[in-house]
């Protein structure tokens, strides 16, 4: 095998398998489940740019998710646009929001940063909840469909794959580029990074911009699939935590980690949900505790450790 083939065949195989899934899976429930796995994999990857590589624990990513969902819905309902233009509008608005939120919150470090992102997302939630005339307030409203029947499940499924591929490509690039190394330097020690010529203010913003855009796009498609937007569904803190958990669970600052994390988290909480009502929070909580205490490198470190045991897995496992 040429090096190129050796390096990329698992990726090619993975994308070939998931792309073909709607052709051989006809159970709507299973497709819906995998669709959710893929959307949350995109979200985990997007969070990973900021939370994993740059080590900035954002607990406010639901803000961009909600902006994507609401922008698509309201541009159809209030302006009468095509929902796809609404999706683009959402991405632009999310980038703008990221610029504003980022330039304020990135001045803060550690727990202050985490809490200020949470606060920013909550401000957006409260504002949306209280603009009844524009957003339907706390009740929420129906979201438009991005794809029309027939075979709507398959179309949504194929709709999210380009997004996943783009997020995967960007992740791979960040993982191996100088930009990625600068982000990791910021994560390890911001002062030292500055001393060697990294500008954390700029690099953190540059990581947040694509992160917000991908989160917004995933938010649009997710809201459209479940055809509903409301402050308690697309702007809840739970999604912020879930997204961070997915990246951490799989392995922060790795390309495959968020995909793995999304598979594990979505499937575990689904399995528990079929046996008990209201268990997903217990599952998230216990998984978080287990990951932090026993597996700070994420599930992926179970595999990489065996193959490259000489490399130490850091507190936030730093390898692919």
């Amino acid at each position, binding site marked *: 095998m040429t090096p190129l083939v050796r390096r990329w065949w698992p990726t090619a195989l993975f994308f070939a398998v998931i792309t073909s899934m709607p052709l051989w899976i006809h159970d709507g429930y299973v497709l819906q489940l995998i669709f959710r796995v893929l959307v949350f994999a995109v979200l985990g990857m997007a969070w990973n740019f900021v939370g994993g590589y740059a080590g900035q624990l954002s607990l406010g990513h639901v803000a961009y998710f909600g902006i994507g969902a609401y922008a698509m819905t309201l541009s159809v309902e209030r302006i009468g646009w095509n929902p796809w233009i609404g999706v683009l509008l959402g991405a632009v608005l999310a980038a703008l929001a990221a610029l504003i939120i980022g330039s304020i919150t990135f001045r803060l470090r550690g727990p202050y940063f985490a809490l200020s992102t949470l606060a920013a997302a909550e401000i957006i939630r409260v504002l949306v909840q209280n603009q009844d005339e524009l957003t339907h307030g706390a009740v929420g409203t129906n979201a438009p469909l991005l794809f029309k029947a027939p075979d709507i499940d398959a179309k949504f499924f194929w709709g999210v794959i380009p997004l996943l591929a783009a997020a995967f490509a960007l992740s791979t690039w960040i993982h191996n580029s100088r930009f990625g190394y600068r982000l990791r330097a910021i994560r390890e020690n911001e002062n030292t990074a500055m001393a060697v010529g990294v500008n954390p203010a700029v690099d953190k913003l540059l990581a947040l911009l694509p992160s917000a855009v991908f989160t917004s796009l995933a938010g649009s498609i997710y809201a459209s699939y479940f055809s509903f937007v409301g402050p308690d569904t697309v702007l809840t803190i739970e999604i912020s935590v879930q997204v961070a*958990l997915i990246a951490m669970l799989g392995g922060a600052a790795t390309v495959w980690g968020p995909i793995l994390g999304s598979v594990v988290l979505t499937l575990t909480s689904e399995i528990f949900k079929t046996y008990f009502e209201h268990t997903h929070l217990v599952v*998230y909580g216990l998984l*978080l505790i287990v990951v932090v205490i026993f597996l700070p490198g994420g599930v992926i470190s179970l595999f990489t450790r065996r193959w490259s045991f000489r490399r130490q897995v850091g507190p936030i496992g730093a390898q692919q």
Partner: protein
Amino acid sequence: MAWVQAFLNGLLVGGVYALIASGMALIFGVMRLVNFAHGAFLMVGTYLSYYGWVLLGLNPYWAFPLWGAVLFAAAVGIYWLLVRRVMGANDFLQILLTEGISLALIGLAQLVFGADYRQINLPIANRITGFGSLHFSVGYILSFAVSVALVIALRQFLRRTEMGRAIRAVAQNRAVAPLMGIRVERVSAITFGLGIACAGVAGALLLPIFWTNPTVGGPYTLKSFVIVVLGGMGSVQGAALGGLLLGIAEQFTAYAWADRYAEVVNFVIFILVLLFRPQGLFGGKA
């Protein structure tokens, strides 16, 4: 007169905030740990108080030390089991761990108690008293009085007792304290227990004037962190004053603008204080 009423209402609620935030300030000051599970423990306090009243007829206004003791014990256990392992780790892991504890507690509460809203009907708490055109519910006054008394007791404990001195020594310098014969692990466990007990007791005192459900604690984690930032990180006195201030700020916003914007005020204050006066409004250290 309405402004005076809003001010006094804010002060009464602020007293309870002061108690919650003192607990968080204590934990942060001594352990350098941001306790994302603070509100979840407050929620546990409300349920203890609820079932104590419904099943055993224990009035929260005199049974609260019992609920505080239960939460103290639970928190010390959780410290030894889990929190101990992330002491000295980066704050990323600490936040995720306490967030995990929080989610697990909320999820367990949903499983065990269901998601319904619950309320108790305590005759004394519903009585209204007042002078002139000002009116207060007796429940608010009682909760305020007990909270303020407890904050003062906590301050005296930290200043006057041997354990209090040990706690302050660890807050000042974690590396040097053991050289003075202080058992840092034990002090941390007790601090965590005390901080959580503050949140739990506040929950028990909020129940007669409020309601509860498994997610009731969520806003209080953020609120108490806002207050801790406002009062100067880790300062218990600062947190007490910050609590009163936040209570008043909320009531003023609710009166001047709209009820529902009161929560935005928290976050705006939080970000502004962090950006422009990160040492807190009152400066100083624990």
